[in-house]
């Protein structure tokens, strides 16, 4: 991640990358969960990239991925990795620095 990249993103915009392993059921679940969370909490302000480590193993190196599925929050900083199929919604929201919906005021925990 560079200064340029950070500058290119508007404030409050999320840049996410999800690492999966082909079409395993867990990978499929992770993709599903991620889509839902984004749709519910980050509507219109996220950029999600899904990387299959079978296809591109080298992509794991930069973000030091050691297992899949792993979601990486690249922006806003700080960088966070969330491992697993993302079915623990609370944990995912926490990792993304997002307050649960019922607590209101997303973006400012």
């Amino acid at each position, binding site marked *: 991640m560079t200064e340029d990249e950070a500058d290119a993103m508007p404030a409050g915009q999320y840049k996410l990358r999800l690492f*999966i*392993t*082909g*079409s*395993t059921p*867990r*990978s499929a679940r992770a993709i599903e969960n991620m889509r839902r969370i984004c749709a519910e909490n980050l509507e219109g302000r996220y950029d999600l990239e899904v990387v299959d*480590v*079978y296809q591109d*193993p*080298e992509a*794991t*190196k930069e973000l030091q*991925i*050691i*297992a*899949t*599925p792993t979601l990486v929050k690249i922006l806003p900083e*700080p960088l*966070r*990795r*969330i*491992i*697993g*199929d993302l079915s623990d919604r609370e944990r995912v929201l926490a990792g993304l620095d997002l307050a649960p919906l019922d607590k209101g005021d997303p973006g400012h925990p």
Partner: protein
Amino acid sequence: MNRHFELADIDHSQLTELQDRLREAEETLEAIRNGEVDAVVVGGPSGQQVYTLENADRPYRVLIEQMQEGAVTLSDEGFILYCNQRFAALVGADREALIGESIELFLSSTEVFAFRHLMASGRGTGRSAEFILRSSTGLWVPVNVSIADLKVDAQMPNVLCGVVTDLTHSRERSHELAAANMRLASEIEERRRVEDSLQLALDAADMGHWDLDLVSNTVTRSTRYDTIFGYANTVRAWGLPMLLSQFVPEDRDAVREAFSLAESSGAVEIEKRIHRLSDNSIRWVQIMGRTFYLNGKAVRISGVVSDVTDRRHIEEQLRQAQKMEAIGQLTGGIAHDFNNLLMVIGGSLDMLDQRIEKDDKIVRYLAAARLGVARGAKLNQQLLAFSRRQDLRTEAICVEDLIDTFENLLDRAVGETVKVKIEKAPEPWYCRTDPHQLETAILNLAINARDAMPQGGTLTLKTDTGRLDTKAATANGVGAGDYVIVSLADTGVGMTADVVGRVFEPFFTTKEVGKGTGLGLSQVYGFARQCGGFVSIESRLGIGTTVFIHLPRAIRADAAKTVAAPAVEVKGKGIVLVVEDDGDVRAVASSLLENLGYSVLEAGNGSDALKLIDSGKRVDLVFTDVIMPGAMNGMDLVREIKAKHAKIPVLLTSGYTAQRIAVDELAHDLQLLRKPYTQVDLSLAVQTVMNKST
């Protein structure tokens, strides 16, 4: 210690960050420990390796088993480590039996080396080649084998992944395609051949091709079409109006009508005149075409065109020749009978002259009657000349030798207003002809020329030489070879083409009644034909007319010259046998001979005459007609007499002396008396023959 001091230095935010990272690490470990991950990624010297923790490749196995391509993994040596169901089906074996077997079992021995080469070559990249697999059921299956290396650690044995595609169907399709292509190619070839031979046929027939598109109103043509119409450079396609404009104005409407009629009738066939662009000459073209219909509507008219000018010219010449031949037959027949009539009248006059008391009136009447007979005989002579039945006395002569005579003749004939020019051929050639008839012919032509130049002008008599090729000779009804050409050109009024077409017909004249007989050119025509030559004529209105007499060249000159006989009657003695089928003529001839002092025996035909001679009666001279009906004509009789009674001299007579007698060797030394003859003519002829034989 130092570390504690460092920790103490760390501020709160850094601490939070560190706590988060620690939690992240713990969560990761926890997840791995709990089996919440599918794979771990391990970095190594050869890059990142993905290790599947669970049966994460199951979807791929399902995919591989589902697909219609055979899939195998092979060891370096070609042993099958894995294969899908499809591959097993391709080679017709159980999957269980295949694992551990060499794939080379299913390759023909000739392809094993190529397969090994494919496995070994291009390590690290995908590659493919086509083979034929031999299934265990004995079938040969064409396949494409695509091979890629599986990336594994350096220490691990090499594995190759192969995808085997059955090409049977695609081969069949390409075979079908190839067969279809072959059919198409042969059809194209056949069509081209047909087109070529059509083109060849059109070329051979000297025909051009044209195609009128009625929808777009454009005419497309072949090169030959443009040549016929005289277009030097290719002109773009044009419409019907342009096509029509190439025809002469008088024919244009007829052509337009023919084309519009063709749309309903289905065909067009015309023979009309065009203005050829290249030399602006008028040519006859024949156009034939058929109409093509689409849904009952005429859309195209397509066909051929040929230049028929030459053909029409030759046809015209042939028609002319046939007409002249027919007229010749007719006039020849009439002249023969007419001569016999004149003979009777003339002979009777001769006898009347001797037997009646004469006063001045009777003498005048007799003289007038004789003059009439003489004029009739002269006319008859011209008729015979035209019908080529006159008695030609041909000899090989050089026309140049006669030029002086002709010049005098011309000067007298044409009068003072016409200037006479003589042009001689560069080389004097001989030709076989009758100089007297040639003189008559030139005189006839000169009189015509004079009449064509009432205001005066120039008359040019020219002799020339020339060679006729087969085509030109055939067109004129003569043989090819060298010809002496005598031409007479005037600068007179000229003639129209219609008049030129009829000038040689007997009694055809453009002169006022009483000014010409219409036999002058007929004589020229018949004379030239009888000499083995022909006459041609060129005439342009207002410019003049030239008549060319072509006479075949003769090799050598004959020295023979005819000597003019004295015109006084000579009496004689002896027995003359008169052979003549016409009773009146026979009676006249007998009377004339008796008047001359001869005794006469008579016979009505050849056979009777021969019987009479054979009976041993004394005959001093046989005077016979040439042409007689019955088994024996005059020539047959002569032949018999020559054979049996060679001493008896013969005198022939005919009103119809044909060329065939002249060429007959028998007639070579025979004297021929032309009808109608006078008593004087007869006496001289009889004397000559009787003197010769003694």
